[in-house]
C-alpha cells in the first residue's frame, strides 16, 4: 500500500471517531436549550465572536506546557525503564510508580501551586509527575516481555551489551514508546488543563474556567471540540508512523 493510502486509512478511524462524537453532541443538543448544550452548528455560527483576542497566545501556552511536561515525562520514563530493567530493579520501581499513580492530581495541583505559584511551572510539573508512572510501568513491562529466543541467539554469537540494546531492547521498545505517546498525550492534555484550571491566568484551561464561570457554553464547547480535533489529528499521525516507518517493529 502506498503511504498516502495508508495515511488515509489511518485517518479514516479518527474521522469515524470525530463523526461519532459530533453525532452524539448534535443529538444531545436537541434535548437541551442552547445556553446548556449548544449544538455544533450554533458553536460554528457564532465563531469566532466568543473567543478572546489573544486566543492564539493561550493556545500556544497550553501547547508548550503539554509538550514540555509530557516531553520530560516521556524521556525520563523511557530512560528510567531501560535503566531499572538492565539493573534488575524493575519490581521495586514498578511498585514505587504504582504507588505514585494513586496520588490525586487535584491535591498535587494545589501543592504545586503553593510551591511554584501561578504560572507555567505548576501545570508542567503536574503533567510530568502524573504521566510518569504509567509511562515507566509500560516501558518496564515491554522490556520484561522481550523476545528471549532472540536474546539467546545474541548470546550464542557473542554479542556485547551494546548489541543487545541496539538489536533487542530498543526495537522491543518502539511499539511501547508509540503507545506511550498515544496514551500519554490525552492524559497530559487533561492534566495541563486541570493545572491551568487550578492555578494559572493563561492557557486553554484558564479560558475554559472563565468561560464556564460566565456560562459561555458556546466557548466551552468550542474548546472541547478543539481539543478533540487536535487529539484525533495527533493520533492519526502516530497511526501513520506505526503503519509505515515503524511497521517492522510490530512483528517482534
Amino acid at each position, binding site marked *: 500500500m502506498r503511504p498516502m493510502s495508508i495515511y488515509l486509512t489511518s485517518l479514516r478511524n479518527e474521522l469515524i471517531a470525530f463523526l461519532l462524537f459530533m453525532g452524539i453532541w448534535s443529538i444531545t443538543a436537541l434535548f437541551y436549550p442552547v445556553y446548556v448544550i449548544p449544538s455544533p452548528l450554533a458553536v460554528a455560527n457564532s465563531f469566532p465572536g466568543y473567543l478572546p483576542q489573544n486566543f492564539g497566545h493561550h493556545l500556544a501556552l497550553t501547547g508548550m506546557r503539554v509538550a514540555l511536561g509530557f516531553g520530560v515525562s516521556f524521556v525520563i520514563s523511557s530512560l528510567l525503564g531501560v535503566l531499572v530493567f538492565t539493573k534488575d530493579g524493575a519490581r521495586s520501581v514498578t511498585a514505587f510508580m504504582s504507588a505514585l499513580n494513586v496520588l490525586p492530581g487535584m491535591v498535587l495541583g494545589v501543592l504545586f501551586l503553593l510551591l511554584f505559584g501561578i504560572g507555567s511551572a505548576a501545570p508542567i510539573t503536574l503533567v510530568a509527575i502524573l504521566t510518569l508512572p504509567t509511562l515507566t510501568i509500560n516501558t518496564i513491562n515491554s522490556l520484561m516481555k522481550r523476545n528471549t*529466543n532472540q536474546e539467546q541467539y545474541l548470546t550464542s*554469537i557473542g554479542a556485547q551489551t551494546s548489541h543487545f540494546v541496539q*538489536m533487542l531492547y530498543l*526495537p522491543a521498545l518502539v511499539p511501547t514508546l508509540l503507545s506511550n505517546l498515544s496514551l500519554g498525550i490525552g492524559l497530559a492534555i487533561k492534566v495541563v488543563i486541570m493545572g491551568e484550571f487550578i492555578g494559572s491566568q493563561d492557557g486553554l484551561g484558564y479560558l475554559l474556567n472563565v468561560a464556564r464561570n460566565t456560562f459561555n457554553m458556546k466557548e466551552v464547547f468550542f474548546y472541547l471540540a478543539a481539543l478533540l480535533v487536535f487529539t484525533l489529528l495527533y493520533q492519526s499521525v502516530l497511526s501513520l508512523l506505526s503503519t509505515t516507518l515503524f511497521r517492522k517493529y510490530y*512483528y517482534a
Partner: protein
Amino acid sequence: MPNKYILTVSHLTKSFGDHTVLSDLTFALQTGHRLAIIAPSGSGKTTLLHILAKLQTPDSGSSVVNAERPAVIFQEPRLFPHLTIDQNIFLPLHVQRTPITALIQQQLRQWLDVCELAKFRNNYPHELSGGMMQKVALIRGLLPKPTLAFLDEPFQSIGQPAKKRVIQHLLAENPSLSALLVTHDPEEVSLMATSTLFFKTNSLGKYILLDTDPVMSAPTSAETHFMDPRRSYV
C-alpha cells in the same frame, strides 16, 4: 596441529525438577566428524546443545569445546523482524567485527541461489514463509564457515528437495565442518552425519559414545551406542 577432539563431554547431568534429562552423559566428537543424535522428544537433546553452546549450565559435569565460536542453529529461525534478510545474515559477522569481503558476498550469493532466496535480500522476515526463514537462519549460521556447529533440527521446516540441496552445498562449502545434529529424519542423517547416536529412553545419559578410533578410555560397564549411518540399523 588441530585437536583430535573438537568436543569432549564428561559426566554431564541436568535435571528440571524431578525429571533428569541428562544423566552422566559422556562422549567426544572428533574434529571433522558430524554426529547425529536421535532420541525421543523431551529427552534433553536441545538442553544438551544449549549447555554445549553455554546458553544453559549443567548441574554437574563439564564440556570442552575446541572451537572459537561454534555456530548454533536453533529449531526456530530467531530472525530479527526489524532487519532485512541481508542484515540478519550479516549480523554475526557484524557482531564479531568481521569485514564483509567480496569473497563473503560471493559465497552469500551462492547460498541465496541454492536456497532460492536471491530475490528476497531486502525483504523483512515477516514477508517470508517459515521454510524460507529457516533457510535464512541456516545461511546466517553457516556463512562465517564455523569449525563447529550445533544444529537443533535445523531442516525440519524445509522441504525434501531443498533440504538435500542445502546440505550438499553446506558440505561442499565447509567440508571439514564438525557438527552435532539433532534430528528425527533418517535422510538428514544419511546426507550429513558421519556417526549416529540413538537413545530409546527419555533421557540422554549413562552411555559412552566412542568415535571410530577410540582413544578415550571408557568404563567397562558403560554401554556403547555407536552406529555407522551408512549401515542399516534397527
